[in-house]
């Protein structure tokens, strides 16, 4: 399969992007990689990593969408940007998936309008796998759609459920609706109406809906998919990131505070390393946009080679899971009164 990589997107482009893509190509003989970007810069970055392997090619793109560009229109204004060229290639069948660490808003806009939504899907959603006490929870949506309707949230539930089952191998994923309590009367009108729609879907056997779930229970492993509007989802995600970072710093400070604690740290080092690895977003790679006709993965803007490598693997898993067909088949089940 062929993965198209935006070689110019992100803070560490093209060097770390190219390095990560080449690592993926060398590790997986089933992958072809197309690096899209300023040809001279991309080839120079590749030369610094031992040159271009056989299954890696470069497509020239003379422009780069940056953070100053209007995300809604950037892909149209900069028609020869690495993002626009790469997504157009994906749309035209010249690749199977796309990875970018560039502007999230521009990628969402361009993905929606170039690659297009799966027929019947109203909005693409960003669905990161958030580390939890269990195997992680798919948070749908984590920021693409700040304001949602019942229909959007119901669709997010199906998108997340299909993704968790087919791409992540979760058995009958438990779907929870992010809310301020578990009772069915909790939350605002949107939450109450969505609860009823999802309950109906659950009773019909379409999804494994477990009801409302509070953020803390989701993090403790209470569900496999948590459905939220983009605003709430983003607040939840950033809070988790912030608490994780804070806890990590405090823990490190504690372990370095005395000789006794330093010895203790050495004794538990392997456990600490494993724990750190589990929480490290680079281990996952990126965030998929669910609801588009082909896999598009957004890697974090600060991604370095390891994150990009894992984002490429994530894109490959998305291709293999072939989500679009199954999702399109279920869109009839997702209809609600809007």
């Amino acid at each position, binding site marked *: 399969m062929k993965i198209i990589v935006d070689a110019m997107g992100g803070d560490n482009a093209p060097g770390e992007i190219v390095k990560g893509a080449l690592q993926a190509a060398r590790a997986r003989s089933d992958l072809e990689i197309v690096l899209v970007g300023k040809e001279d810069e991309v080839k120079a970055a590749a030369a610094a990593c031992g040159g271009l392997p056989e299954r890696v090619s470069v497509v020239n793109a003379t422009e780069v969408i940056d953070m100053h560009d209007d995300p809604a229109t950037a892909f149209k204004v900069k028609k020869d940007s690495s993002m626009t060229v790469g997504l157009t290639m994906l749309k035209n069948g010249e690749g199977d998936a796309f990875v970018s660490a560039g502007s999230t808003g521009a990628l969402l806009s361009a993905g*929606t*309008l170039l690659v*297009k939504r799966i027929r*019947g899907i*109203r*909005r693409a959603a960003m669905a990161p796998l958030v580390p939890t006490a269990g195997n992680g929870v798919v948070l749908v949506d984590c920021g693409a759609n700040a304001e949602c309707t019942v229909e959007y949230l119901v669709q997010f539930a199906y998108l997340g459920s299909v993704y968790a089952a087919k791409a992540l191998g979760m058995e009958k994923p438990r779907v929870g609706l992010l809310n301020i309590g578990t009772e069915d009367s909790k939350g605002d009108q949107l939450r109450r109406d969505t609860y009823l729609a999802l309950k109906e879907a659950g009773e019909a056997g379409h999804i494994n809906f477990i009801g409302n779930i509070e953020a803390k229970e989701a993090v403790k492993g209470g569900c496999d998919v948590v459905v939220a509007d983009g605003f709430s989802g983003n607040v939840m995600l950033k809070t988790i990131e912030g608490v994780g970072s804070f806890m990590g710093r405090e823990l490190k400070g504690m372990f370095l505070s005395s000789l006794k604690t330093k010895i203790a740290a050495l004794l538990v080092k392997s456990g600490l390393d494993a724990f750190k690895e589990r929480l490290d977003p680079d281990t996952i790679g990126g965030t998929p946009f669910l609801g588009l006709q082909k896999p598009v993965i957004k890697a974090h803007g600060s991604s370095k080679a390891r994150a990009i490598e894992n984002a490429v693997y994530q894109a490959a898993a998305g291709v293999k899971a072939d989500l679009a067909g199954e999702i399109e088949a279920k869109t009839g089940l997702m209809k609600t009164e*809007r």
Partner: protein
Amino acid sequence: MFYHAYGILLTPLRKEGNDMQDIFERMQRIISEQFSVDEDEITMDTSFEEDLGADSVDLVELVMSMEEAFDIGEVQEDELSTLSTVGDCVNFLSGKLDD
């Protein structure tokens, strides 16, 4: 001479009708593809929002398809806001193509 004059009078109407009809049929195909409706269900009076359930993203996507299919350059935001029905689009495109 009469028939010649009659032909001259008819010609612009006939030509405009064919162009409009052609534009309408092409729009039927685009809309049918995007909204998964039968072409026969699409008339000049079909409203994107009321009849097809289109939202803002659907309209932007439709306009992009129009831009590509008819090669009319970029439709401006103030022009986009005038396109509520299929007939609006056909008339808009006819004007653009005549320019």
